[in-house]
């Protein structure tokens, strides 16, 4: 994939909603996670505004997935505060929420897209049930409505509605990933966490998925925290990015600035290691 500066991101970037756009949705300060003596991530602070895509880049083992899991309440941090602005406008410390509240947040206002769709899908029920699960979890009890909603979302992620009763097992890798995205978006979340969403897909499927993601993010005004080792993905999707090394954030700023004019020697190394075709 080319890393040319003119990637047509302007449309996506201009789509942040006006209301409350000046207040961050997620604010993290001094977050650290230690695995015994080893460092997962150390002293990370960040903020994500509504409608903004933040990429966390870095090599394997740099702590990006640890950081993402700490943000998404999937892993309890050793220290630090993660605050989230709820739909009613109140700012809550995520690790002071009850488990019930955390899980409710997780399946209504948030989404989590796993690298491997098998982790994020229910493989033994149909595509329609996968999409409808979150709706049923929040109390939808009308089969006909659930089904038409599932059809709508499948078409939105470019899966033919005729495949609604097929198991995800019968889907290709790219379709599974798109199904996982539909399943996450069905409750109208405001914040999506993505862990290498294009990992393991071939290049042409990757390109289509990125295109779809960019469109959905722009249309729905989603805030996204995306973890990737692929700088091209960061370039295409994100507004801002952070570069991590050894568990610490070494550089952050606008994506185009970092990729075109990296300051830190490590970032320079990272950017220059991209294979050119």
């Amino acid at each position, binding site marked *: 994939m080319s890393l040319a500066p003119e990637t047509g991101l302007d449309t996506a970037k201009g789509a942040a909603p006006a209301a409350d756009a000046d207040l961050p949705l997620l604010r993290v300060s001094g977050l650290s996670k230690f695995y015994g003596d080893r460092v997962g991530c150390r002293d990370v602070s960040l903020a994500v505004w509504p409608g903004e895509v933040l990429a966390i880049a870095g090599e394997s083992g740099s702590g990006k997935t640890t950081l993402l899991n700490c943000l998404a309440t999937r892993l309890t941090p050793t220290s630090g505060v993660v605050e989230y602005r709820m739909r009613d406008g109140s700012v809550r410390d995520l690790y002071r929420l009850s488990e019930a509240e955390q899980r409710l947040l997780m399946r209504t206002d948030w989404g989590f897209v796993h690298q491997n769709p098998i982790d994020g899908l229910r493989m033994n029920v149909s595509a*329609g049930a996968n999409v409808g699960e979150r709706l049923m979890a929040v109390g939808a009890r009308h*089969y006909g409505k659930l089904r038409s909603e599932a059809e709508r979302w499948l078409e939105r992620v470019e899966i033919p509605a005729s495949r609604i009763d097929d198991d995800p097992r019968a889907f290709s890798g790219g379709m599974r990933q798109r199904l996982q995205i539909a399943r996450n978006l069905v409750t109208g979340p405001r914040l999506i966490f993505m862990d290498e969403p294009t990992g393991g897909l071939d290049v042409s499927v990757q390109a289509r998925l990125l295109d779809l993601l960019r469109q959905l993010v722009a249309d729905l005004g989603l805030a996204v925290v995306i973890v990737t080792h692929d700088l091209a993905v960061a370039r295409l999707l994100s507004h801002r990015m952070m570069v991590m090394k050894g568990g610490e954030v070494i550089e952050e700023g606008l994506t185009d600035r970092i990729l075109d004019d990296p300051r830190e020697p490590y970032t320079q190394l990272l950017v220059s290691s991209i294979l050119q075709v």
Partner: protein
Amino acid sequence: MISAAYNFAYLDEQTKRMIRRAILKAVAIPGYQVPFASREMPMPYGWGTGGVQVTAAVLGPDDVLKVIDQGADDTTNAVAIRGFFEKTARVRTTTATAEATVIQTRHRIPEEPLTAGQILVYQVPIPEPLRFLEPRETETRKMHALTEYGLMHVKLYEDIARHGHIATTYAYPVHVAGRYVMDPSPIPKFDNPKMNDCEALQLFGAGREKRIYAIPPHTEVVSLDFEDHPFRVQEFAEPCALCGSTGVYLDEVILDDRGGRMFVCSDTDYCTSHRPSGPDDQSAAEWENAR
């Protein structure tokens, strides 16, 4: 005599006390699965080890015991368990539903309405209604604790998507007292409405899975469904071929290898007490032959 060597109802008093504590807790929290230290019983798992332990714990010397297996009093499982308690507890046994004070059942609720003071003990193979969708026990416990029951409807959704209607016909999940979702054991969904507001105490024992749960008398039990696919019980086109009853659960009996069949009550006690004519009746002869 061998039975003299056993304590009353086979289990020792400490074990029965432990089981009774679990039962009390289960009655206090309708539909909640209480773990208990299930014992090895002199029968294989899957033959009612859970039900037998619950029965042993609630049985007193004056009780009258009835045991049914798929509605029948005369199948192997029912005869064996009845014989077991005749030998180890020397209680009176019966096949008449109205006479019994304790009824142990596998896969049916008797047709005759149960009355206050009776105890219905179910044999349960898999107590966890969410198990086939969520294999992790830690996760299902959490889902019960947080009342996260959306997954149960995912199963019903799958049924409609595949078959056009809710095709679950037995072990149909119920919502107990507005709190816990419960597996009623593999009874036909035909019997689900009988659990609601039942006068008798209903106890469920799962021996292998080491769980006891209960529905106290007069508890609200609602079968799960969708607004546009409401819960419905099975309906039968013909009455019972032996006693002519309608509105009862029927078993299909194959009579020969030329497609001959008849539908008869699965509840044998109900059927015999409702038969209009004697055993020289034509269908009854066919029935006897079929067996």
